[in-house]
């Protein structure tokens, strides 16, 4: 279906959290305050690489209004964090590995006093040479930044024999592609409030994409049992992967426990830039060869990923990149080698698309180049290489059958922009050029083989007579709550007022795994399916006992249980209301489910089982005088199973598309010698309303292969992954120049001085 309001009809619904968002009534976690609340600040090294000789906090402690000053000596448990590998110190003790490294934290009565106290902390450093590129880090005389050296993780995937494969090729293209250090730029910076409770527990109000994981990490740091920590983690002012890892939490928690008062920390944008995660900059070299029919015979890839100072999810991101460097294409001889390398740069980590965006830019560039060299339409060339429904996955793993790649390959051709693909010569000034480009890919969801990826939920009738569901998932804007509301209405035909949805509070929700990796929609859909039958059975049984009516005659509806056949116009009232049922006791009306995200049976680390597909067509305008690129159109065809919530789905693709437009044309958190040069939103630019096409046509292909039991897939990431290569191909179409380094540099696209007079003449 074409996703828009008209086509969606009654499924285009106002979000349940909408009213509070448009009136400003919604209290984000960084908006909250508590009586006696102190303000926390973190001291950052400012040096990308240095040995710490001494830290003196005595003066800061004496400042009036200061309630706590903490360093590494004050961490009761593990002085480190990291989702996959906890190797980032909460507070550095001996060595500083990037300019955002924390040395101390202060809680004071006002932000100004806290800031002043930071200035009174005296640290002596011995500054060390900065390792600011992966190449330097791998060099022979580079010092190891971590005990294991400078390589966080390596991948090496092979099948067939690439050397042999290349021998049979009539054409081989080889290119190196580079991608930027993109910043998530959630509008709400990291922050939260930390409240020590009277019973000795700690309540954390701070955004994350996985409350239970934060609880586990904090329990390790604080040496407190997990049950004594409560994480309240939604609503969130944007995350995109960036708030999945701990950020303010260790500092806020330690300061509040030490001062025995609530402590708030809310990063300034500059602190968010310096301390926050970014997308891994990658250098991807691909050598790809094909026979004269365009059939790819050999594909050889190296990936060099700058993971920055600490691990977080750098290893998993590299695994994902390795898998997606092969993509939806069937190729006999493949070799992909990747390295994620430590440097003294800012920490790279999880970011929407998870390593896919970088390698797909490269892979799709290869497809275009091969097509040109062979004089085969590159889109046709892709078709000749596309995987079939039941083929093995990119890493040779069994995966859920999908026609997605073929569906989107065809689907995108319905876009109005596609139709302009071969048109040229609009009436324009000679230095204005238009071009159209296309790209496609397949994107894995879930965490992949070998990584625990549990899911679960709870359903019950609660004391107020509402159908209550609870999930350990988060609302960062994607529309989870709206999707849940729609699914519940589909299941129970009840009113909005008959349900209660609980998320984002570890005291009230079960563990459901993370809200990442495009997994949430699919997991809540499965969980509700699992719980619905037993819940209804129990509900009807109870209603039958209370009313004496045979349970087979029942169905749920607005306000309560109705007699079958009465639905549609619901003549009078339910035979028994949910409240009446609740008043008669709630025992036996509570259900839960626990299961695992579907995973491939083949033991290949990180390999994915469920895939979605996307194709993107972009139309650009390039001004050869300035080199500036304007994106005139960006349309998508997405195959991700049935659409539950069209407004949410459309929003994810539109928003993901523009985030990727930024990645392609303007965004880069520039680092110079280990220091961020882009300190705020005046120098780190993200797209404004003037940089984007007014409408993106999004065609959602809902049809799944027959018998597919997995239902709707998540679409949180797939809208971002194939945009860059489509735009770059459109730029080539317009200018004849191949961009290999993102973001696109206008200087590269400007016509040379010699070319300009020709243009004027032509005009």
């Amino acid at each position, binding site marked *: 279906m074409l996703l828009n*309001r008209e086509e969606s009809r009654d499924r*285009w619904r*106002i*979000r349940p*959290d*909408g*009213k*509070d*968002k*448009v*009136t*400003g*009534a*919604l*209290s*984000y976690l960084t*908006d909250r*305050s508590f009586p006696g609340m102190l303000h926390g600040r973190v001291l950052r090294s400012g040096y990308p690489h240095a040995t710490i000789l001494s830290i003196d906090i005595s003066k800061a402690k004496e400042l009036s209004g200061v309630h706590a000053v903490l360093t590494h000596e004050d961490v009761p448990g593990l002085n480190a964090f990291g989702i996959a590998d906890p190797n980032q110190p909460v507070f550095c003790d001996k060595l500083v590995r990037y300019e955002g490294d924390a040395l101390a934290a202060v809680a004071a009565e006002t932000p100004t006093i806290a800031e002043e106290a930071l200035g009174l902390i005296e640290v002596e450093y011995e500054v060390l040479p900065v390792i600011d590129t992966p190449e330097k880090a791998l060099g022979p005389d580079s010092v190891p930044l971590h005990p294991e050296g400078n390589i966080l993780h390596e991948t090496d995937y092979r099948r067939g024999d690439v050397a042999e494969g290349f021998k049979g090729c009539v054409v081989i293209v080889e290119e190196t592609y580079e991608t930027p250090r993109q910043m*998530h*730029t*959630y*509008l*709400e*910076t990291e922050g939260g409030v930390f409240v020590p409770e009277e019973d000795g527990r700690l309540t954390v109000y701070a955004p994350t994409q996985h409350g239970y994981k934060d609880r586990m990490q904090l329990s390790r740091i604080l040496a407190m049992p997990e049950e004594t920590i409560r994480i309240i983690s939604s*609503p*969130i*002012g*944007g995350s*995109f992967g960036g708030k999945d890892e701990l950020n303010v939490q260790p500092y806020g928690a330690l300061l509040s426990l030490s001062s025995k008062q609530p402590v708030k920390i*809310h990063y*300034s*944008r500059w602190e968010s830039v310096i301390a926050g995660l970014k997308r891994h900059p990658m250098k991807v070299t691909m050598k790809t060869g094909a026979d004269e029919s365009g059939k790819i015979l050999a594909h050889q890839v190296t990936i060099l990923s700058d993971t920055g100072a600490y691990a977080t999810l750098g290893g998993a991101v590299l695994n994902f990149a390795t898998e997606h460097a092969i993509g939806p294409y069937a190729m006999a001889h493949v070799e992909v080698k990747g390295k994620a390398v430590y440097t003294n740069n800012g920490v790279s980590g999880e970011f929407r698309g998870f390593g896919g965006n970088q390698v797909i830019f490269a892979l799709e560039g290869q497809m275009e180049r091969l097509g040109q060299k062979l004089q085969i339409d590159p889109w046709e060339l892709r078709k000749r290489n596309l995987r079939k429904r039941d083929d093995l996955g990119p890493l040779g793993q069994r995966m859920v059958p999908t026609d997605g790649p073929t569906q989107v390959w065809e689907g995108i051709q319905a876009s109005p922009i596609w139709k302009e693909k071969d048109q040229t010569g609009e009436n324009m000034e000679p230095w204005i050029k238009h071009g159209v480009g296309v790209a496609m890919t397949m994107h894995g969801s879930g965490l992949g083989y070998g990584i625990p990826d549990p899911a679960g939920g709870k359903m019950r009738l609660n004391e107020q007579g509402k159908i209550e569901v609870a999930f350990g998932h988060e609302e*960062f*804007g*994607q*529309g989870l709550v709206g999707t849940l509301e729609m699914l519940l209405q589909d299941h129970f035909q009840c009113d909005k007022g008959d349900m209660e949805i609980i998320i984002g509070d570890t005291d009230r929700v079960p563990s459901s795994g993370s809200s990442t990796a495009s997994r949430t929609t699919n997991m809540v859909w499965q969980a509700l399916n699992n719980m619905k039958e037993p819940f209804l059975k129990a509900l009807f049984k109870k209603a039958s006992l209370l009313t004496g009516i045979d349970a087979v005659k029942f169905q749920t509806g607005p306000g309560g249980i109705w007699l079958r056949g009465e639905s549609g116009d619901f003549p009078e009232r339910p035979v028994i209301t949910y409240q009446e049922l609740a008043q008669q006791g709630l025992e036996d009306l509570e259900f839960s489910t626990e299961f695992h995200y579907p995973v491939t049976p083949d033991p290949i680390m990180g390999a994915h089982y469920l895939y979605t597909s996307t194709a993107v067509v972009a139309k650009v305008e390039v001004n050869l005088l300035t080199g500036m690129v304007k994106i005139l159109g960006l349309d998508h065809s997405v195959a991700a199973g049935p659409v539950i919530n069209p*407004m949410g789905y*459309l*929003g994810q693709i*539109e*928003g*993901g*598309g*523009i*985030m990727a*437009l930024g990645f392609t044309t303007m965004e880069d958190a520039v680092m110079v010698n280990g220091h961020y040069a882009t300190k*705020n*939103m*005046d120098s780190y630019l*993200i*797209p*404004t*309303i*003037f940089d*984007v096409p*007014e*409408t*993106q046509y999004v065609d959602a292909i809902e049809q799944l292969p027959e018998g597919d039991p997995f239902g709707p897939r998540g679409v949180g990431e797939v809208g971002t992954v194939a945009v860059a290569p489509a735009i770059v191909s459109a730029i080539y179409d317009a200018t004849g120049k191949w961009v290999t380094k993102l973001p696109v540099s206008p200087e590269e696209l400007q016509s040379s001085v010699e070319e300009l007079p020709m243009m004027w003449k032509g005009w």
Partner: protein
Amino acid sequence: MLEKNNLTVLEEGIDVPLSFRLNGKEINLQVPPSRRLIDILREDLQLTGTKIGCEIGRCGACMVLINGEAFNSCLTMAFQCHEKEVITIEGIEEDKLDFIQQAFLEEGGFQCGYCTPGMIISLKAVMLEKENPSISQLKEGLAGNLCRCTGYGGIHRVLNRLVSDR
């Protein structure tokens, strides 16, 4: 305020009386004249509908109306509000939703919602200034408002709605 010794007062950050109308109510405070309006709103008065995203006037999350015009409250100091009429997102409409707010709801003009109060204020300012603004005038009004979630798709739908519904 600030008639005599303006400089001394500013430099030393001495509290001075500040009075302005905020969402229709008279407010009297004692604050340093250079205290930022955003801090007065979010911290002193606990009106957190006005958001904070960059503190340098680039993101627009902090927009408020001062005498009907949109201003970045992160760049506005207390003395600049003296005896003015300030309206924040909380004061846009009392009982029912403003039709700009309604359009955001119906068109999916937001996701995380953090940019939304600022967007609505900026559009309100255009609406107050022009009776029948065009799409491009409305868009111009959002030149200083960033949204990271929506890609502006839903916001474009809002603009179309505002023009067609008038």
